[in-house]
């Protein structure tokens, strides 16, 4: 199958949508499909061979933060040319309402379109105002995918229609087989709690973590908190009343993240909102670390209502500390949850998720082919012959 995938965000900076697109394309290509990805990127950026650049991304304020997007007539022309030259059987757009190449591709698209909504900010006032202009384009989308039941609900409530749920994927074996690093491995006296996330986005929960630290260390004075993620270190340190016990690792690469999760005793996800999926929880479960997470709808679902991890009241540092302590002081329970987590994580393994995505592509193509047969039959002189579609 010839598959065209469009990512609105620049590959120059890491991000959930970019990783998802990269891994999906990689996996589909490994199954023998012809896959091209279009995304903004700097001219001198080193890209995987299947990615085409849609031109340089511009940093613009959008939706409360600075996003790197590509737009304008030149980009629109490039997108159009890419579509024509690609001759795709299926066009798969990610985040089709972000003001970047996905939206431009949707505007220009003629053939069957599949669209994945990751964290669509459908509630924003800008979106509400501009939506009547976008609706005609959006009507071209033959198959909508939401990354979680929560994302689907938001979609249905705000723009109507319906979507199917296909979760984000993780290469589970990369995490399950990761080797712990001695420096990050906990001992009974100094257990390790890990956190991965942007430091300067409060909704990722660093402020809550900083309140959890002293509460945990009051009971377990040796407990170490390893914080990995990009952001302003000085500002992050300022949140801590006492810097002891917290180590900032800065940005880590894939291997570093895998090793950190494989080494830690507990993964703490103190996010306070805005999460539509929670990929990092799946990564933690895949690596075999017990998870304590805020009670957000998306997290609750990923953790099987608490069967695969401990949930605590969102934003509540006391509850968070109690959840972490409960795990750190009970190794048997920790092992049980880690094992349950590893089983749950298999559901999000790329082979499983990509099969779901392919099923979506094939369902669309089946309909088009069947419809074409019906139309052809109708043109035949002998009427009434039902089309023999079946197995």
């Amino acid at each position, binding site marked *: 199958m010839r598959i065209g995938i469009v990512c609105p965000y620049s590959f120059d900076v890491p991000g959930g949508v970019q990783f998802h697109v990269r891994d999906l394309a990689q996996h589909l290509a490994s199954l023998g499909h012809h896959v091209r990805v279009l995304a903004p990127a700097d001219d001198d950026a080193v890209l995987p061979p299947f990615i085409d650049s849609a031109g340089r991304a511009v940093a613009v304020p959008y939706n409360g933060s600075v996003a790197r997007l590509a737009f304008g007539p030149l980009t629109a022309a490039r997108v159009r040319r890419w579509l024509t030259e690609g001759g795709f059987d299926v066009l798969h757009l990610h985040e089709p309402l972000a003001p970047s190449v996905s939206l431009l591709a949707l505007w220009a698209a003629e053939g069957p379109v599949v669209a994945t909504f990751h964290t669509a900010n459908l509630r924003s006032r800008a979106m509400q105002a501009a939506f009547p202009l976008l609706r005609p384009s959006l009507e071209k989308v033959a*198959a*909508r995918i939401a990354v979680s039941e929560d994302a689907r609900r938001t979609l249905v409530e705000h723009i109507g229609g*319906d979507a199917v749920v296909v979760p984000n994927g993780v290469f589970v074996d990369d995490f399950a087989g990761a080797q712990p690093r001695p420096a990050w491995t906990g001992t009974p006296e100094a257990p390790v709690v890990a956190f991965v996330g942007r430091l300067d986005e409060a909704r990722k929960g660093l402020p809550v973590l900083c309140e959890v630290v002293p509460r945990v260390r009051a009971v377990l004075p040796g407990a170490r908190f390893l914080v990995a993620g990009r952001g302003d270190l000085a500002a992050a340190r300022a949140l801590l009343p006492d810097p002891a016990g917290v180590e900032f690792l800065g940005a880590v690469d894939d291997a570093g993240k895998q090793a950190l999760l494989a080494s830690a005793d507990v993964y703490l996800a103190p996010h306070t909102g805005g999460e539509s999926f929670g990929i990092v929880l799946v990564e933690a479960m895949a690596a075999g670390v017990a998870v304590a997470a805020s009670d957000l709808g998306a997290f609750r679902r990923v953790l099987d209502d608490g069967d695969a991890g401990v949930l605590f009241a969102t934003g509540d540092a006391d509850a968070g500390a109690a959840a972490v302590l409960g795990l750190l002081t009970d190794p048997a329970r920790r092992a049980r949850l880690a094992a349950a987590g590893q089983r749950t994580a298999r559901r999000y393994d790329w082979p499983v998720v990509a099969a779901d995505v392919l099923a979506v592509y*094939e369902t669309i193509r089946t*309909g*088009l082919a069947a419809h074409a047969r019906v139309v052809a039959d109708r043109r035949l002189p002998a009427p009434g012959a039902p089309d023999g579609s079946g197995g």
Partner: protein
Amino acid sequence: MSSLAWTLVALLVVCALAGYLSATAQRLDRLHHRVETSRAGLEVELTRRASAALELATGGELDPATSLILADAATASLDAPRTPAALRDATDADDAARWTAESGLTRALGVVLPPGHPAAGRVRDAAHRVELARRFHNDAVVQTRRLRAKRVVRWARLAGHARLPETADFDDGSAGGGPEEAAGRNVR
């Protein structure tokens, strides 16, 4: 203003109106195409599911009582009358009997399918495809009905003789109760 200017203004207004109507007609045409293709896809997936279920029932892998229940539900689905896919040549849009049969097959599969049974894999795959196809079809129907409810579409008769599409309301076994409870609000 001179009569020439008035004529020009009137011409501009007519052009703008024509442009708007033609763009709306194009949207509607695209949506109708989506409804027809997604419906054709749903038909194929439903037939596939029923054939797979019938194959499982007659394959000798299940006990006779289970086989009979499954075969009955599968043949009911295969024998149910089909509505033509094209919106414009259908006169009878009442699929109620059809959907009852499909819900029946879903329920039979839910009761009968042994968890983890190897022969059930094909049926399960087909059932999953039915869920997808139904969602995509209902999504198209909901958006089409929304546009067709607009005054400009009704007054300018942009829909021609095409019948108003209906959502495929049957139990496909998907968790969450299906889209109707959420999507129905946007239909009417």
